[in-house]
C-alpha cells in the first residue's frame, strides 16, 4: 500500500539548540521527495524523526493521515538506506536481505523466494552467500536497497545513499534507485546535499536552510523561479543586483540600481514590482561593448576560452562576477564593457531590505 506522509508543525531540539523550526512537509503517495541542503540544515534530523529515532518537541508525523509520532521505530514499517550501507557484517547477503522478513515471521521458504527475487532485481543473485565485506561499495548499497525494499515498506528513507560512491556509479545508482522506487510505487524521502542528484530523481525537492524549508517545489520551478535569495543562490544564481523601477512605458520597464540600468521587456520578464532583486547565473550575463546604452558597467579581467564561448571575470559595482562573451568578438583584459541580461538565465526575487 502506497502511503502519503505529512509533517505538521515539527520542531526538534538537540539539548537547547533548536534544529527544526515549525516545519511542514506534505508528500503524496508514490512521490519521491528530496530534502536538499548544506550540512546542519536539519535534513537528516527530519529523516531520523520520520524513522522514529528522534522525537519532535512539537508537531506531528502522519502516515496516510494516521499520527505515528508515538509509534516505536521498529513498528513504523519504514525502510532505511544509509550512507555507509549499514549492512550486518556477520550475515551473508541473503541473510541481510531476509532479515526484515524474518522479523515479520515470514516462513523460511517464502523468505528464500522473496530474497532471491529481490536479489535478482538488484543484479546480485550470484552474491547471495557472500559476506558484506566481500562486496564493492555499489554492491553493498544495492544489498541495502534490496534489504529495505523486500519488506515492502510504507515509506522508504534514503540518507545520502550515494555519497560514498564514485561519480560515475553515483549517476548509475540514482537512476536505479528511481526505477526501483517507481516500480514498487513506494513513497520515498531522499536526503542529500548534492543538488544535481536531488533534482535529477525527485518529483519535488524541499530546499532546507537553518531548520526550515526555504522552498518546496518541482526541480523545474526551483531551478527557474526560486522564491528567495537563499534558494536562488543554491541553484546557481550567483550574481544579485538590487534594482528599482524608474520608468514604465510601452511595455518596457526601466530599472536602475547599483550603477546598472536595464530596459526589461514586460513580454519576457512579466510584470515587475517597483523594487526587486535580480539574480543572474554566469550564463545570464553577456559581455557587450561599453557603448551599449543599458547594462551593468564592468571592467574585464581574466578571460578563459570554453569552446562555445568565452568566460570573463569582471569587476562590477556589485562585485566580481563571471560573465559570458561571444566567440566572434573577444574582449581584452582591462577592457571596459557592459554586461547585459539573458532572460532565461535570470530570475526575479523580492527586494532585500
Amino acid at each position, binding site marked *: 500500500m502506497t502511503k502519503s506522509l505529512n509533517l505538521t508543525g515539527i520542531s526538534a531540539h538537540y539539548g537547547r539548540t533548536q534544529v527544526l523550526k515549525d516545519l511542514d512537509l506534505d508528500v503524496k503517495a508514490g512521490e519521491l521527495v528530496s530534502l536538499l541542503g548544506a550540512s546542519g540544515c536539519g535534513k537528516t534530523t527530519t529523516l531520523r524523526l520520520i524513522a522514529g529515532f528522534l522525537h519532535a518537541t512539537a508537531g506531528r508525523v502522519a502516515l496516510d493521515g494516521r499520527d505515528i509520532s508515538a509509534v516505536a521505530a521498529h513498528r513504523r514499517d519504514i525502510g532505511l538506506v544509509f550512507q555507509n550501507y549499514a549492512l550486518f557484517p556477520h550475515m551473508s547477503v541473503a541473510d541481510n536481505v531476509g532479515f526484515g522478513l524474518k522479523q515479520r515471521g515470514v516462513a523460511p521458504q517464502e523468505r528464500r523466494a522473496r530474497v532471491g527475487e529481490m536479489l535478482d532485481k538488484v543484479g546480485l543473485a550470484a552474491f547471495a552467500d557472500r559476506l558484506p565485506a566481500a562486496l564493492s561499495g555499489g554492491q553493498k548499497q544495492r544489498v541495502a536497497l534490496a*534489504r529495505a525494499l523486500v519488506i515492502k515498506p510504507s515509506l522508504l528513507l534514503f540518507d545520502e545513499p550515494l555519497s560514498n560512491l564514485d561519480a560515475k556509479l553515483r549517476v548509475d545508482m540514482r537512476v536505479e534507485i528511481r526505477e526501483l522506487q517507481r516500480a514498487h510505487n513506494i513513497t520515498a524521502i531522499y536526503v542529500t546535499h548534492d543538488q544535481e542528484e536531488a533534482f535529477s530523481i525527485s518529483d519535488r525537492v524541499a530546499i532546507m536552510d537553518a531548520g526550515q524549508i526555504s522552498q518546496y517545489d518541482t526541480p523545474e520551478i526551483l531551478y527557474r523561479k526560486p522564491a528567495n535569495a537563499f534558494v536562488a543562490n543554491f541553484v546557481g544564481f550567483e550574481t544579485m543586483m538590487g534594482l528599482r523601477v524608474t520608468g514604465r512605458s510601452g511595455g518596457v520597464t526601466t530599472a536602475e540600481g547599483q550603477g546598472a540600468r536595464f530596459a526589461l521587456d514586460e513580454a519576457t520578464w512579466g510584470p515587475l514590482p517597483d523594487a526587486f532583486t535580480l539574480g543572474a547565473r554566469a550564463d545570464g550575463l553577456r559581455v557587450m561593448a561599453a557603448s551599449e546604452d543599458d547594462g551593468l558597467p564592468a571592467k574585464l579581467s581574466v578571460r578563459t576560452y570554453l569552446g562555445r564561448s568565452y568566460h570573463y571575470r569582471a569587476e562590477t559595482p556589485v562585485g566580481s562576477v563571471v560573465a559570458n562573451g561571444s566567440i566572434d568578438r573577444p574582449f581584452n583584459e582591462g577592457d571596459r564593457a557592459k554586461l547585459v541580461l539573458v532572460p532565461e538565465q535570470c530570475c526575479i526575487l523580492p527586494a532585500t531590505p
Partner: protein
Amino acid sequence: MQRSSPLLVITAIAVFIFLLGPLVIVAAASISNTEFLAFPPQGFSLRWFVNVFEVSAFRDTFLISLQIALLGTFLSLLIGIPAAYALSRFGFALPKALSNFFVLPILVPQIVFGFSLLSAISVDFDLPVFPTLLIGHTIIVLPYSIRVVGASLATFDFSAEEAAISLGCPPMKTFYTIVLPNIRGGILAAFILAFITSLNNVPVSLFLTGPGISTLPIQMLTYVENFFDPTVAALSVLLMALTVLVMAVVEKTLGLGYFVR
C-alpha cells in the same frame, strides 16, 4: 632491504631478554635437583612438579582462584558490556568523567584498594571471605572488560543497529542479534585478559583472603615464606603453560588478531 640501526637491534634484543629472561630462569630453576631455588639449575629432576600436585593447599587454592576468576570475569562482563555499549553509543551525551571513572580501579594502588575493601565490606558488612574476594576481583577486572569491549564497539557501525530496528527488530533483540555477534572477539579478549588478571592478582587478594580461603598466588607467597624449594618455580611453569594453552586455543579458534584490533 632496509638496514636497521645497531641501536634498534640492541634495544630489541634487550627487550626480549627482559621479557623472556625471567621466564627462562624460572623454568630452569624448576627442574633443578636441589632443595632450594637454584640458577643455573643443578642436576635434573621433575620431582618439584610432582610436589605441586602433592601439596593440597595448592590444589584447593587453585580451585578457588579459578572460581573467583571465572565468576569475577563473568560479573565484570555483565556490568562491563552494557557500560561499554552506553559509553560508545551515548558517550557524547554522558559526562566525560564517566569513562575515566571506570578506569579508576587501575589507577588506585591496589594495596590501598584492597585495604579499603577489607575495611568497607569485610569488616563493616561482615561478609564471608568468598563473596568479598569475588567483589574485589570483579571491580579490579572491570576496567579491562569495559576498555576491551569498548575498543571492539568503537569499530562497530551503529547505523547497522538502526537498520535492524527499522526492519522491525525490537531494540533489545537488535542488541543480541546485531551488536553482540559483532563484538564477540572483543568480549572473548576481555574475558581472557580479565581472567588472567584476576588469576594473578596478589595485592587485593592479600587483604581479602581469610581463614580457610585463599587464592593460589597468596598460597604461593605463603609457601615461599616457609619453604624455599623449587616447587613454586614448577608451579609457575605450569601456570605459564596453562596461559600459553589458552592463548593457543584462542589463536586457533579466533586468531590473535582480535586482541590487536
